[in-house]
């Protein structure tokens, strides 16, 4: 049985860089180096593992973002994905999660799919809602936040470690899955993988290819408005003591002073 997997990935500013906002209060993507969101590497990894366990599995990686976002696709292709789709359009600048889910859903439908795999959240926006939004838009089961995932025949199964319980989930394909950082270490691209990725096809689509009007996306049409962004004042330097045998007692005295004890 053939299986078409679409993995959604995001190109994000490096979390170890000095992330900040642009003048229009969108995430500044120019001054900080970008990369494939670490949490999406787990999604690519699980797609590869499903592919290795089955036969006739095709993995397409999909991203929505500016020119640089191609780097994220290249990384996923060098890990072993088969092909890539890059949705890029100037009108997309400032699109929020609701709008992004529309673009992704239209692209996923156009590409054709049996299974969508996403990371648990992006490392910049960190909302973690896009997989649920995709399931709602596509009208297919949502099997999200999995620490373990498997596909058998036309069924996807997985383990969700929730806030109050661990749940075993099951749904029929087509479905939308998201995986956590507990699902398994993502592989490093091999030299051979990096060379092979250069020859893999990257398709470019814009909004007209997806029949999306410019007034459905972008900063002007976002469903939420950021009114202000303020840098958090640096914490005032605290007291640091070196333990000379009384460190625990000194700390206890501090906690008592602050009325915690």
């Amino acid at each position: 049985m053939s299986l078409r997997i679409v993995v959604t990935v995001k190109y994000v500013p490096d979390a170890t860089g000095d992330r900040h906002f642009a003048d229009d209060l969108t995430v500044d993507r120019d001054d900080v180096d970008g990369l494939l969101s670490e949490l999406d590497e787990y999604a690519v990894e699980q797609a590869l593992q499903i592919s290795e366990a089955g036969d006739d599995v095709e993995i397409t990686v999909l991203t929505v973002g500016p020119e640089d976002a191609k780097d994220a696709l290249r990384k996923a292709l060098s890990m072993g994905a088969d092909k890539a789709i890059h949705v890029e359009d100037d009108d997309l600048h400032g699109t929020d999660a609701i709008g992004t889910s529309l673009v992704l859903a239209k692209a996923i439908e156009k590409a054709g799919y049996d299974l969508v795999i996403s990371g648990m959240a992006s490392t910049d926006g960190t909302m973690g809602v896009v997989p649920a939004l995709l399931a709602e838009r596509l009208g297919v089961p949502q099997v999200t936040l999995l620490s373990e995932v498997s596909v058998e025949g036309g069924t996807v199964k997985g383990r969700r470690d929730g806030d109050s319980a661990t749940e075993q989930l099951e749904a029929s394909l087509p479905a939308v899955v998201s995986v956590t950082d507990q699902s398994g270490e993502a592989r490093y691209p091999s030299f051979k993988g990096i060379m092979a990725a250069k020859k893999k096809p990257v398709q470019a689509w814009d909004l007209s290819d997806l029949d999306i009007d410019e007034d459905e996306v972008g900063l002007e049409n976002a469903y939420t408005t950021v009114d202000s962004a303020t840098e958090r004042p640096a914490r005032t330097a605290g007291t640091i003591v070196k333990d000379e045998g009384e460190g625990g007692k000194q700390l206890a005295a501090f906690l008592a002073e602050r009325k915690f004890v």
Partner: protein
Amino acid sequence: MAEVLVYVDHVDGAVRKPTLELLTLARRIGDPVAVALGSGAADTAATLAEHGAVKVLTHEAAEYADYLVVPKVDALQAAHEAVSPAAVLVPSSTEGKEIAARLALRLGSGIITDAVDLEAGDKGPVATQSVFAAAFTTKSHVSKGTPVITVKPNSAAVEPAPAAGVVEALSVSFSAQATGTKVTARTPRESTGRPELTEAAIVVSGGRGVNGAENFAIIEALADSLGAAVGASRAAVDAGWYPHTNQVGQTGKSVSPQLYIASGISGAIQHRAGMQTSKTIVAVNKDAEAPIFELVDYGVVGDLFDVVPQLTEEVKTRKG
């Protein structure tokens, strides 16, 4: 006064603390109308009334436990139709965010997640969020539809504010998608007897420096002396020393307690993202250069195996 829908997180009728915090915030915007679903829903009414719910809409059905997320979205949508609220507030759990997102899409509304504060504004509720690993604070509002906002635990005080709390049965017809994802087994997390990590007033966390699963006993002993929850850094979780459910950081829980005690944690960005908004931060670490010391109100450079047990003993002594 406008009504505000509040989604109730409860376990068999026992209302969890973040929901009571939501009632405090909801009262700033309008009259809270609570929505309680599933087994024990009606048992939530007394507590909710005590904290300001003018109405409690309830619906019990097996679907809420047997299928993932969507039945709850159907119910909230039905409640939205019945009430036409000024806003919908949902606790920011992983499931809460998924419910809220799908609801927002159905309502043609915007969604704001992980708010840490909420106030009334000219253009609707204004949500404060802490972003980029808490390096920035943003204020936002929803510009289309009924605002759907999820709020993090510990964002407001629980305040008694007695209200009518009239219980009404909510009529829900489940959508075709409701039974799409079956929950074939559920194992409730074993209770440790300690406070819930995201709700605790004090969190004591251990990291790489704890150096072994068995050594977490000293972290737990300190936590128990303070009535605190136990957290762990990603390094400690990845090493298999402590369960992932206790992980504090970007890919674990995000906590904002009154007091955060970091032991043997260097303070990488991954970890800071999950604890930087804590009110008071203290740390014990051997390495004087560890970035965690940039955040602390009080830090001890020393061996946690000396400092932490001494601290635990001293806390016990002081508490008598």
